[in-house]
């Protein structure tokens, strides 16, 4: 699976304003609403589901990265977005570090395989330090899109 298969370009943000977990999640889901990938009527329900998943254990996986996610019946295919925070967000990460790079995923309840393949893709690409570093430094959504495209085209390791 490639980034282009599940990342909604119009919802990519390079200047996250939120400084806490709930704010960050709200901002990213709102971006998906504005990109018309999620209905505004489902906004609160999706935010709540993602927060509930965080209660089971933070999706802040370390190295300044978090992958907040949920299953939700309102989507019929995997939908995701990327956000970068220059100041960092307290996400109760495994390594205690703040998070600068977010991949948010919403998947249909009956498609665990797609979610797994998206996680596989994200984690494989992030193993490349250059890719990870450049994404965190991105100042514009276009920078992020370009980096994701380059990763899809195997410009980075593995």
């Amino acid at each position, binding site marked *: 699976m490639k980034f282009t298969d599940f990342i909604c370009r119009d919802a990519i943000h390079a200047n996250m304003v939120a400084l806490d977990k709930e704010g960050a999640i709200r901002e990213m889901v709102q971006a998906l609403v504005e990109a018309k990938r999620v209905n505004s009527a489902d906004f609160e329900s999706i935010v709540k589901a993602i927060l509930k998943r965080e209660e089971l*254990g933070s999706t802040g996986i370390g190295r300044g*990265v978090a992958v907040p996610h949920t299953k939700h019946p309102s989507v019929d295919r995997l939908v995701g977005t990327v956000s970068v925070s220059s100041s960092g967000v307290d996400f109760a990460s*495994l390594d205690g570090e703040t998070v600068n790079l977010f991949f948010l995923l919403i998947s249909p309840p009956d498609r*665990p395989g797609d979610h797994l393949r998206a*996680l596989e893709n994200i984690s494989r690409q992030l193993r490349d330090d250059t890719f990870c570093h450049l994404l965190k430094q991105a100042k514009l959504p276009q920078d992020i899109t370009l980096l994701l495209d380059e990763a899809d085209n195997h410009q980075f390791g*593995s």
Partner: protein
Amino acid sequence: MSEPALKRTVTVANRAGLHARAAVMVVTEARKFDARVVISKRLHEVEATDILQLMSLGAAQGEQLSLEGSGNEAQAAVDALEQLFLRKFDED
């Protein structure tokens, strides 16, 4: 001469596969032991203590993984990780 590594095969039995929370459970368990455990899916080998590497396996339900332990507590570490897979990560 060092002891030969301890090897075991496990099957991913939970429906969601080795997703984020399951990977966190593996990392948390693996870090409890004085041992190194390498988990592999075919030729793709990763460290059991590295969540990003674990998720990069994309191990789905029904797939087989190999656990290979070495070090002082290799046996206990491999046993504990095998249990997580057998327990389906307390899911399903």
